[in-house]
């Protein structure tokens, strides 16, 4: 007999060692997330996956599933919280979708659509952030970094390198690269590295490829992020 938890009243099985996120994904339940990626160690920083476990607020991507948990996921309260979190992400950086080449393929944008975010609600920070276009093939636009650390983890865990890190705290938090000069061109990042492709937003981009995918053929043109996520992000235990 496998162990079970309930999510929004639905009983689903889980395997020992799985997080709530992994158990949910395996059962075909979408929990909104940005910093979570099935292939990498959970980081639990974006808080978009916030759920209520037996009345307590937890991050589904880091919280282990345990027998008898009663998880609330798709409630109005949690949706409202997630929308606010997303709005904060938008105003903290400079996310100008209309001019952004990631538009239509961007997970931040897609999550915002999914959560029915219609405005920014909070005042814009208009943070002054830079671009690092020094690398011949890869560009960092710091305006769009949400500090999910997926590039950090992909570089370490998949590419066997250590190109990216997050430095600073709070409002001074920023993405740095592993080079004395502070420039991407002086790191050992290569265009084929997973870290160059994993950014959920338009912060790390492959140069000279923007807008090549026409509207109508982009990832989120016909499917919402919940569907895409369940179809593409296979849980670990399936592998």
């Amino acid at each position, binding site marked *: 007999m496998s162990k079970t938890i309930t999510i929004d009243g639905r009983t689903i099985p889980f395997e020992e060692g799985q997080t709530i996120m992994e158990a949910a994904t395996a059962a075909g339940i979408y929990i909104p997330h940005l910093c979570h990626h099935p292939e990498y160690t959970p980081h639990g920083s974006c808080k978009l996956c916030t759920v209520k476990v037996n009345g307590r607020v937890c991050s589904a991507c880091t919280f282990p599933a345990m027998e008898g948990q009663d998880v609330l996921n798709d409630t109005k309260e949690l949706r409202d919280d997630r929308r606010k979190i997303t709005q904060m992400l938008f105003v903290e950086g400079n996310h100008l979708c*209309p*001019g952004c*080449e990631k538009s239509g393929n961007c997970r931040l944008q897609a999550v915002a659509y999914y959560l029915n975010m219609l405005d920014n609600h909070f005042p814009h920070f208009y943070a002054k952030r830079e*671009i690092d*276009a*020094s690398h011949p093939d890869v*560009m960092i636009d710091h305006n769009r970094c949400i500090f999910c650390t997926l590039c950090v983890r992909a570089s370490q865990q998949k590419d066997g390198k250590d190109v990216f890190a997050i430095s600073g705290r709070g409002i001074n938090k920023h993405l740095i690269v592993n080079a004395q000069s502070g420039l991407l061109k002086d790191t050992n990042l290569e265009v084929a590295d997973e870290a160059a492709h994993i950014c959920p937003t338009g912060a790390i981009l492959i*140069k*000279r*490829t*923007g*807008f*090549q*995918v*026409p*509207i*109508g*053929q982009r990832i989120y043109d016909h499917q919402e992020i919940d569907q895409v996520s369940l179809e593409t992000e296979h849980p670990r235990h399936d592998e």
Partner: protein
Amino acid sequence: MYEHLETAENRDNLKRVVVDPVSRVEGHGKVTLLLDADNKVQQARLHIVEFRGFERFIQGRPYWELPVLVQRLCGICPVSHHLAAAKAIDQLVGVDPENLPASADKLRRLLHFGQVLQSHALHFFHLSSPDLLFGFESDIAKRNIIAVLGEYPDIGLQGVKLRKYGQEVIRMISGKRIHGTGAVAGGMNKSLTKAERDYLLEDIDQMITWAAGSVALIKKVHCSNLPYYDDFATLRTNYLGLTKPDGALELYHGGIRAKNDKGEMIMDQVDYCQYNDYIHEEVRSWTYMKFPYLLSLGQEKGWYRVGPLARVNNCDYINTPLAEAARVEFKAHSGEAMVHSTLAFHWTRMVEALHCAESIKGLLNDPDIMGHDLVAQGEKRYEGVGVIEAPRGTLFHHYQVDENDIVTKVNLIVSTTSNNMAMNESVRQVAAEYLSGRELTEPLLNNLEVAIRAYDPCLSCATHAVGKMPLQLELIDAEGKLIDKLVKHSDGQIERDGDF
């Protein structure tokens, strides 16, 4: 002519009339008139609140974003900016116009014809037809598209549908009716499917018929009041625009041609990448908008007009039969080598709309628009110039990038800027001829707007609700005291404000 009205000799004891903002014009504008005690115009200026800082906004961005970023310059002709930027960044990836794959070239042309058609239809039917059909001094409550739809339902509806069709062409190619994608450095990101092509073919014959009908309509309106139409705000100027190498009308790509008021060639087939050697821009302290002029003729005599009137005046022929016949008729009506009537912009705008509709049909029947060879690639360059004939006239985009592909320098000359001098001259002329010595009334001030609107100016190249602009007239005496104020609300109601 009326240059003396640019700056009044003695500005003391003059009262100020402000028309702000100019309604039914895309963007923001303000006309100020300084009147003397006898209501004689002593100074007339069109001030422009133009997009400032846009150049700064794109500096520092990677060049491949440009075609999409610059679309934000304008809510009415974003596609023109999109394509001008695309032509410039083609050069950054080493692709000259002749090396663009045939499919990409034709898709861009199709996109552009759709854009010009929708913009011209918008201008003619939504913005100008109220004046043209009801008269320039008609009741203000009538001067909007709703009134046109009420009294001329067929004409109004055709205008709406012509515009919609142009937008559908844009949507099929760029994915969205406004602010889509499409052109990328060296080509296009998609071609049309057969289904998309067939969808557009369905209505094209109807569009050609309606466009031809609108040419006939404007011709009738123009010719039924010939002295007025030929004299109102009329200027004998130089004209500038692109033409094909054989002198045919061209909207997407060609060499620069300029003719003087007698129709004599000033320059022909000049490579637009060298525009800097031929055109300079003068700055004046009282407006944000610059004044371009032809270097060879100097600041005083070198200003010129662009747009439909300039293009139809300049070209030797049009390569689609109905539009060509319409051009011949248009030229014949004046009996002069060049037509200088400012209100003739409307007529030529419709000749071009007809040309667009005919050209769209031609391209839709060309299998290349469904081809798959869409992008070319060459050697990286550091500078690119893209020039296109936007609905309102010649549009210049000029960029420099660094070794990291980041934009370092931007220069844009938008169409409305090229018409700046002419618009000001027309304002001065109308102010002097129609307003001097008469009491100020709204229809009189509308005459001023009619002159400006003939150029279809896109004053801030920013999106504004069409026809919804409130209009404010202020009379200010020499001491700066407000002595009268007329407010036109967005619903057309006029109110005298305050206790005057």
